[in-house]
C-alpha cells in the first residue's frame, strides 16, 4: 500500500530539509571531511620527513600502532586517568549538585563560585598547577613533598588527575543538577511518608530516578576525559610515561611529522570514543542527548 502524501505535507518536509541544510553542510565540512581524510591518511605510509616514500599501505599502520608498547602504555594511562577522574568527579559532582540544589540563600553566588574552575582556560589552570607543584617556588610542592612530584610517574599522574577533577567537577555538577531538578518533590515526600531516611530517599528514589541524567553526565565526561591533552601537555609533556593517546598522536603528527602513523592513532582514538559511546547508549540505555526521555 502506498502512503499518499499530501501537497502540504510534502512542502513541509521540504522546508524541514532546507532548514537543516546549512547546519548539515557545516557539519560535513568541519567534521565529516577531516574524519574521512584522517582515515585516508591512516591507510598510507606518509611521513613529511620522507615525502617521496608516500604510498598506500592498507592496514599496516594499524598493525604497527597496535603492536607498539608505547601505544598501549599511553592507552593504559588514558584509561586510568579517565576512570579515576570520572569516578571521583561523579561523587564530588553529585555532592556539589545536591548542595546547589538545596541551597536557598545565595543560590546564585554558590552556583557561580562553583563554576569558576570550569570557566578558566585549561592551559592556564594547568600552568597554575604546574607552578604550584614546582619545588622551591610552588606552595603545594613545599607543603606536601620534598622532592619534585612532577618528575615521578605516580605523583605526576595523580597531579594530572587532580587537575582534571578540579577543572571538570563543576561541569559534572551542573549536569547532575539538571537531573536532580527532574526528581519530583512528591516522590521524595512519598518516600519520607513511607518511612525512608534522608539517605534511603537519596539512594532508593533520587538516584534511580535521575539515572538517565547520571548516565548522560558520565557519557559526556568519559568521552571528554579520554581525550585528555592540555593538562598533560603543560604538566609533564608526557615525560615518565605519562602520555595519553592524544598526546602520543600529537607527538607523532606534529612533532614527528608522521602523518600516516599520527592519523592512525587519531582514528583509533575516534574508534575508542565511539565504542565507549556505544556501550553507554546500548548497554546502559543512556538516552542519547536530545532524545525524549519518555521512560517514566
Amino acid at each position, binding site marked *: 500500500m502506498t502512503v499518499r502524501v499530501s501537497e502540504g505535507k510534502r512542502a513541509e518536509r521540504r522546508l524541514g530539509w532546507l532548514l537543516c541544510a546549512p547546519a548539515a553542510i557545516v557539519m560535513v565540512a568541519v567534521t565529516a571531511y577531516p574524519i574521512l581524510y584522517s582515515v585516508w591518511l591512516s591507510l598510507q605510509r606518509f611521513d613529511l620527513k620522507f615525502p617521496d616514500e608516500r604510498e598506500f599501505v592498507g592496514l599496516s599502520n594499524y598493525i604497527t600502532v597496535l603492536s607498539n608498547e608505547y601505544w598501549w602504555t599511553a592507552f593504559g594511562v588514558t584509561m586510568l586517568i579517565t576512570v579515576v577522574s570520572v569516578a571521583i568527579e561523579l561523587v564530588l559532582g553529585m555532592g556539589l549538585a545536591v548542595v546547589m540544589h538545596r541551597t536557598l540563600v545565595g543560590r546564585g553566588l554558590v552556583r557561580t563560585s562553583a563554576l569558576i574552575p570550569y570557566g578558566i582556560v585549561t592551559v592556564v589552570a594547568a600552568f597554575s598547577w604546574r607552578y604550584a607543584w614546582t619545588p622551591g617556588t610552588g606552595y603545594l610542592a613545599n607543603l606536601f613533598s620534598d622532592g619534585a612530584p612532577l618528575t615521578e610517574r605516580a605523583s605526576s599522574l595523580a597531579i594530572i588527575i587532580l587537575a582534571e577533577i578540579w577543572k571538570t567537577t563543576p561541569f559534572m555538577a551542573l549536569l547532575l543538577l539538571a537531573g536532580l531538578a527532574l526528581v*519530583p518533590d*512528591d*516522590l521524595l*515526600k*512519598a*518516600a*519520607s*511518608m*513511607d*518511612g*525512608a*531516611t534522608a539517605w*534511603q530517599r537519596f539512594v*532508593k*528514589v533520587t538516584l*534511580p*530516578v535521575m*539515572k538517565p541524567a547520571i548516565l548522560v553526565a558520565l557519557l559526556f565526561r568519559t568521552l571528554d576525559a579520554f581525550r585528555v591533552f592540555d593538562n598533560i601537555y603543560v604538566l609533564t609533556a608526557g615525560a615518565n610515561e605519562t602520555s595519553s593517546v592524544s598526546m602520543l598522536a600529537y607527538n607523532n603528527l606534529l612533532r614527528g611529522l608522521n602523518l600516516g602513523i599520527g592519523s592512525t592513532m587519531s582514528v583509533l582514538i575516534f574508534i575508542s570514543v565511539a565504542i565507549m559511546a556505544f556501550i553507554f547508549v546500548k548497554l546502559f540505555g543512556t538516552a542519547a542527548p536530545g532524545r525524549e526521555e519518555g*521512560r*517514566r
Partner: protein
Amino acid sequence: MADIVLDKVSKKYPDGTVAVRDVDLEIADGEFVILVGPSGCGKSTILNMIAGLEDISSGDLRIDGERVNDKAPRDRDIAMVFQSYALYPNMTVRENMAFPLRLAKLDKATIDEKVNDAAKVLELTALLDRKPANLSGGQRQRVAMGRAIVRNPKAFLMDEPLSNLDAKLRVQMRTVVSRLQRRLGTTTVYVTHDQTEAMTLGDRVVIVRAGAIQQVGEPQQLYDHPANLFVAGFIGSPSMNFLHASVADGRLRTALGDLPIGSRVRGLLSDAPENLIIGIRPEHFEDAALVDEAARAKGTEFEAPVELVESMGSDKYVYFTVEGERATSAELEELAADAGASDLPTGGGANLVTRLSAESAVKEGENWRVWVNLEKIHLFDPSNGRNLTLHEGRAAGVTAE
C-alpha cells in the same frame, strides 16, 4: 488507628504570609473527614502539617493523644496518597507497594503476604510486575492507594487523589475509596477542591477558606444550614442564588418581589443591617403551575423572563434574569473567582438558576410564573457573610414564626 487533634495549629512562612490560622479540629478514630476549599485556601498545608512534611509554626498536633509536632513523617506512622500518585518509576507495582514494608524491615514472607492481600483488595494482582509507566491513570491511582493501605497505618492522608482522573473514572473511584475506608475503618483525612467529592465521601466536611475553618459538619448539615455566605455558595451544584435584599416595613424587598418575614426571623434581624443578601437554592424554586394549594402557602410567586432551559431528564435547569441589584460581597467574589466565573459575561440584572420539575412546560423567551419556597431561604449579612437565619445552628427560612 488513631484520632487526630489539631489544637490552634497555624502555619506562618518566614516572609510573613499566614497560610493556616488557628485551626481547631478533632478527628475521631476511624472517621472520614474531608478538607475542602478553593485552591490556595490552605487545606493542603493543613494536610502536610499532619503528615509532617511541613513544620507547624504554632499550636499542637496530637495523634493518638501524643504530641507529634516535632516527629519526622516516618515516625508518625501515617500513609499518604498524592495527587500525582508519586509512584516510584524505577520499581514495579509490587516493589512500590512493598517499599514501606521493606523500610520497616519486615521479613520477606510477611511482605509478600501483605502486598498480595492489598493487591487483591484493589484488584491489582494481575499488574504486580508492571512498572508504573505501563499503567493507566486509574491503575496508578489504585497502586498509590495500595501502597498506603499495605502497612496498616494509624491514618490515611489523601491529597486530591482523584483530581488527575477523568470525570467518569473519578466517580467510580469515589465509591472505591469510600468502600475501602469503611472496610478498613482507618482514620482518613481527604483534601479536595471538588465540593461534590466532599459531599459524597466524608462523614464530616471541613470547609476552609483563606487558612481558616469556616464550618465543620456532616454534608447535609452544611448544605441545609450553612454558617455563612462562603459555605452556602461553595456547597451545592448549581450553586445557591444570591440576590440583594433590603428590610422595609416589616417585609423583605427583593428582585423577586416583597417577601413576608416571620416573627422569629424578625427577631433575629433586629440588629441586622438594612441591606442583606438573600440566598435561595435552585431546587427551592418550582414551576408555579405544578405547586399544589397546600405548598403554595409556604412560599411566594413571581414572574420573570426565561433565558435558557437545560433539560437534565430528571429535572430542568431554568435560567432567569431578574431586574434588580446584584448581590455583592468579598465572599461571593472569591467564590466567583474560584469557579472562573469572573471571566464570564454577566449582562444586566441578577441571574437566577432554578431547578424545576421535568414536567414543567417552561419555554425559553417567555415570561413564566415561578414559585419559591420561603421556608428554605437564607439571609446573609454582606459585611461579614454570617447567616442571619441560622438559629441554634439551624436555618428555617424567612417566614418561621
